[in-house]
């Protein structure tokens, strides 16, 4: 019963706070550029406005196009219930999937989005799908490689156990293997969250990837599409701080007060990540589209070097 309560608490925490993180991100970036910037609550205002707007669907699209934003939102909400966000012990749905299973759900949501964008029959959406598919085809194997390496560290693919191992074993936490994996995941995180140097959110179609895919959505459909996107990014960032880089302080045993305190700490961790990503975004420029593949090659190299670091420093064949 308590686990169900905590699951619901975690779900509401993610659903309600995910837009805020991106409001803070935009505000922070604008402040670095010496501009006033929008309010940190701007994503909420946008969602609220979209919920009240009429839904307009392309005449040529099938009903599938209309359904996908809701399915996507549901899939990301399901992931919220199975990942270590405010606790390091599995909640009610925790044992349902491991990291690979979570990756498959992420992949399923991405696939549905791509098919729906193709269904819109818009040229720009097709452009975005083509680019997102090219990037995704390279990013997915790297992500699987990262999960395999985490499996080597913890002898399992369960994110909770990986967190517990890194939280308790300083030799693993400080190992080269772990930090190569973390660096590779950070590069993939920038790809998945659509940040520079991969993607710049402007109206120029030359650099559009993800943002070209939702051009035909409107009203409540767009609101759920965007909200789902916020949740996805929030989850990836949470996994990065909770499992890969700062696995500390996450409550490993049931204790309501420590979970309440950790909720605040988790938000602070995310703010730290937002600041570092904001500083990075403000100091580098966008790559040309075909240079993105060089970036992916470096990310793959880092993930693979973690293998080599494991064999060199921890064992051998």
């Amino acid at each position, binding site marked *: 019963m308590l686990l169900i309560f905590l699951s619901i608490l975690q779900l509401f925490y993610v659903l309600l706070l995910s837009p805020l993180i991106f409001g803070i991100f935009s505000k922070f970036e604008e402040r670095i550029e010496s501009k006033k910037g929008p309010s940190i609550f701007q994503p909420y205002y946008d969602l609220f406005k979209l919920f009240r707007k009429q839904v307009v669907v392309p005449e040529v699209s099938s009903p599938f196009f209309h359904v996908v934003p809701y399915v996507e939102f549901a899939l990301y909400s399901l992931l919220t219930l199975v990942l270590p966000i405010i606790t390091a012990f599995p909640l009610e749905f925790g044992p349902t999937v491991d990291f690979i299973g979570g990756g498959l759900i992420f992949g399923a949501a991405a696939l549905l989005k791509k098919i729906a964008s193709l269904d819109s029959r818009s040229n720009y959406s097709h452009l975005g799908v083509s680019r997102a598919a090219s990037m995704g085809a390279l990013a997915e194997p790297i992500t699987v490689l990262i999960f395999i390496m985490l499996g080597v560290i913890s002898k399992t693919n369960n994110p909770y156990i990986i967190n517990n191992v890194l939280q308790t074993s300083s030799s693993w936490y400080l190992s080269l293997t772990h930090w190569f994996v973390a660096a590779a995941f950070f590069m993939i995180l920038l790809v998945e969250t659509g940040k520079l140097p991969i993607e710049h959110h402007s109206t120029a179609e030359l650099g559009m990837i993800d943002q070209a895919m939702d051009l035909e959505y409107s009203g409540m459909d767009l609101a759920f599409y965007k909200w789902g996107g916020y949740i996805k990014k929030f989850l990836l960032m949470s996994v990065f701080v909770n499992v890969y880089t700062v696995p500390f302080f996450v409550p490993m045993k049931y204790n309501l007060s420590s979970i309440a305190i950790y909720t605040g700490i988790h938000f602070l961790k995310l703010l730290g990540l937002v600041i570092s990503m904001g500083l990075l975004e403000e100091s580098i420029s966008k790559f040309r589209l075909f240079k993105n593949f060089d970036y992916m*090659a*470096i990310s793959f*190299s880092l993930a693979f070097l973690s293998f080599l*670091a494991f064999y060199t420093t921890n064992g051998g*064949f």
Partner: protein
Amino acid sequence: MEKFFALIGFFEILLVLFMQWEVYTKKIITTFSIASYTIAVFLFYLGIMENKYLVVILAVLTAGVRGFFIPWFMKKRIVRDPWREREIKPTISTALSILISLSVVIFAYVLYRITFYDSVHLSDGSIPIALILQGVFLMISRRNAFIQLIGYMMMENAIFLFEGYLFPALPFIVEAGVILDLIGIIAIAGIVVKMMKNSTTDSNEFDELKG
């Protein structure tokens, strides 16, 4: 000490991968400078820990000559020929060359394990071999003379790292290192002279070709 060596070694491997990614000559030279300073830090630490002043001298020489002087000298030469600042057309595409460089690291590891490992017994001894091969690949994958020179000096850095770690008491390394650096400087000077001849914009110098 072994962990520190592995840390420095993998950092060097990453720096060479970064060089392979980069097209601007100036940034590659700066990366080489960072690589040399890192090796100097390792040698300094080694000298202090093992109480060997020759290794400390070697560290200071490495930092001074390869960390500071050679990069400074090369950058100074480049400013006079700004058009040379970039690798315009790499022989192999950047992404592929990064992956080949990574494969070279894996090849070096396998090679080391089946050959030298039985006599040396150092689990991370494959790192300098990987760096040597990566340096060779940097040389053959680029056309820019400065980047090729950097590839050569990365090989030399790798040898320094290996010898410094395995045989820290050899004073010969000090002399050999300095001599190799001098060879490098002479090579740079030779290339620069050739460049100056080839890049002149004054057509009067080619009077004899006009007939």
